[in-house]
């Protein structure tokens, strides 16, 4: 399954590192990652692949300091490929 997340974080140099570490430890592989620096935040769009339920990552991401989750979507792989 693919999971898609969109979230904002403060502009801190170690943010991407924190996110990627959480993904790896919780059993998610990165399929795609975009980080855009806005004037007051970092904007993340993230796709992860795993057999685990989305809540396993969602709950951990929510605990990252000052991370604001905008959306979290669960896709079957075939659905995502259709979109792309």
């Amino acid at each position, binding site marked *: 399954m693919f999971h898609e997340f969109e979230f904002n974080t403060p502009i801190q140099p*170690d943010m991407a590192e*924190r996110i990627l*570490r959480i993904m790896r430890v919780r059993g998610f592989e990165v399929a795609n990652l975009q980080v855009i620096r806005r004037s007051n935040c970092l904007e993340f769009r993230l796709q992860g692949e795993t057999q685990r339920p989305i*809540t*396993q990552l969602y*709950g951990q991401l*929510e*605990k990252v*300091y000052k991370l604001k989750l905008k959306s979290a979507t669960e896709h079957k792989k075939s659905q995502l490929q259709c979109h792309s």
Partner: protein
Amino acid sequence: MNGAACLIEILNRLGTSHIFGYPGGAIMPVYDALACLVKDHKMHHILCRHEQACAFSAQGYARAMGQVGVCMATSGPGATNLVTGIADAHLDSIPLLIITGQIETGLIGTDAFQAVDMLGITHGIVKHGFQVTDINHLVETVIEAYRLCTSGRPGPVLIDLPKDIQKASIDNFELAWQACSEDNPISQFTPTTAQLAQAVELLEQARSPVLMAGGGIKIANAESHCVEFLHTNNLPTVTTLNCMGLLPMHHPLNLGMLGMHGTAKANDAVQAADLIICIGARFDDRATGRVEQFAPKAEIIHVDIDAAELNKNVQSTLGIIAEADIFLAAINQWQKKCVKQYSNLVKQCANKQPVANDTLSNPPASNINKDQGPIYAADFLRQLNQHTDENSLISVDVGQHQMWVAQHFDFSSTKQFLSSSGLGSMGFGLPAAIGAQFAQPEKTLINITGDGSFMMNVQELATIKRYQLPIKIILFNNQHLGLVRQQQELFYAENYSEVELFDNPDFTALVRVFGFQSETINTPAESNPAISRLFQQPGPAFLEVKIPALENVWPMVPPGAPNSTRLTATKRQYDVS
């Protein structure tokens, strides 16, 4: 005022009275600032003999005090030595503020002397890590870090402080302090009325419910609410290692600890239950056994302050994000209207043996008071019970002795037991006792340890000597890494690999070098008088208890097996000769 003085001043204003630390090059400005406050007795610095012990001592302080513990070290090896203690605090949800010196900001990234990326190293074991690179952010960072330690689920927070920031001037300290220290209300997590109603409905429908009480109850000071709840509902109760002492050992509703070395009664009740009400526990594999077969017939109500814990290991029927005390107070209030007694399972449990005799610890027959033959840890601990009361705090290390204490010591309260439960860090017990003794100077601190664990932070005897702490150390010596040896015996065809410690030092002689009273006992008849002498000593004292090399902890659920699978002494035909 420079950054270092600013840091110390903020800690002082936030209520920090004790810092457990070890100085070094990259944190010298902070120690320079600290000296004045220490001299004026406004703050105490405890110089441990290893940074790992600083972290464990600060944890012992936090666990015994229920407040933030503060530890401090220099950059590089000083900082890395803290790491085990930080991870330990993370897994047991202990509020710990860690301050590490760092090389100057301009040198970061040049592989300078004693430089490590502490922020990166600790990413996975802290609630958050801050590296201050601008003096103008220092005040808000320290205040925020301190607040984070205790908000929501407690845990460790790191401040990595480069040396140039420590030396930099801050002109507007009072202004910054006032701006940042205003009350920042901490959001509370409360159950909804719909959740309370559903929880009560599940309780009413259940025929054999069991309460599973975890460390979150202790952290939230929710013990009295919890006891009211379980009495109201007549709920058989199992506890995790972090919630020992919720009920007296022989209370009819206390089934004891569940899990790998839990009581048969606790594991059987959970496996047979049709409802588990789990409060403040995270379904750790040591508690659940094979998780797929945990409580197979049960619906689960899971109450935790951390949303990420719900449905992480065990799927719950009803997940409630709430602080344990708030949930329990609310459901108690709610239930005052509707009470149902669950007497069937309680009657069954009452017909069984008391918890303490239920563990089938080896050997089943008591050996107390015999002039010859070995001392069994269980017997010794039952005797120790007679010499202690609610004013005793027990810190343990990790291994067989830890499990024996959990099984056989009759705790008066959850706060009495200091144990590295989640990480299982050998070497925790002695420095944790030091921290706890500073937090609770009127209490009697007893460190119960093993010969493997004791040697992991043995240098802290020097700290005990320096501050003349009246800590009583009881060392169970079986000349082995006992818990590893036990698993090699049971699951690796007795292929003993690197677990023998026959070349241990003469422990009593070693301890005497530090000026402590010390003695060794070998036979059961010596136990009671030796325990009396231990407590008669006004200062630190040490008692080595020689126990059989091959004594095991029973019962035991094999690693990876369901809790319904249980090995006992009798099933193993165990021979101690």
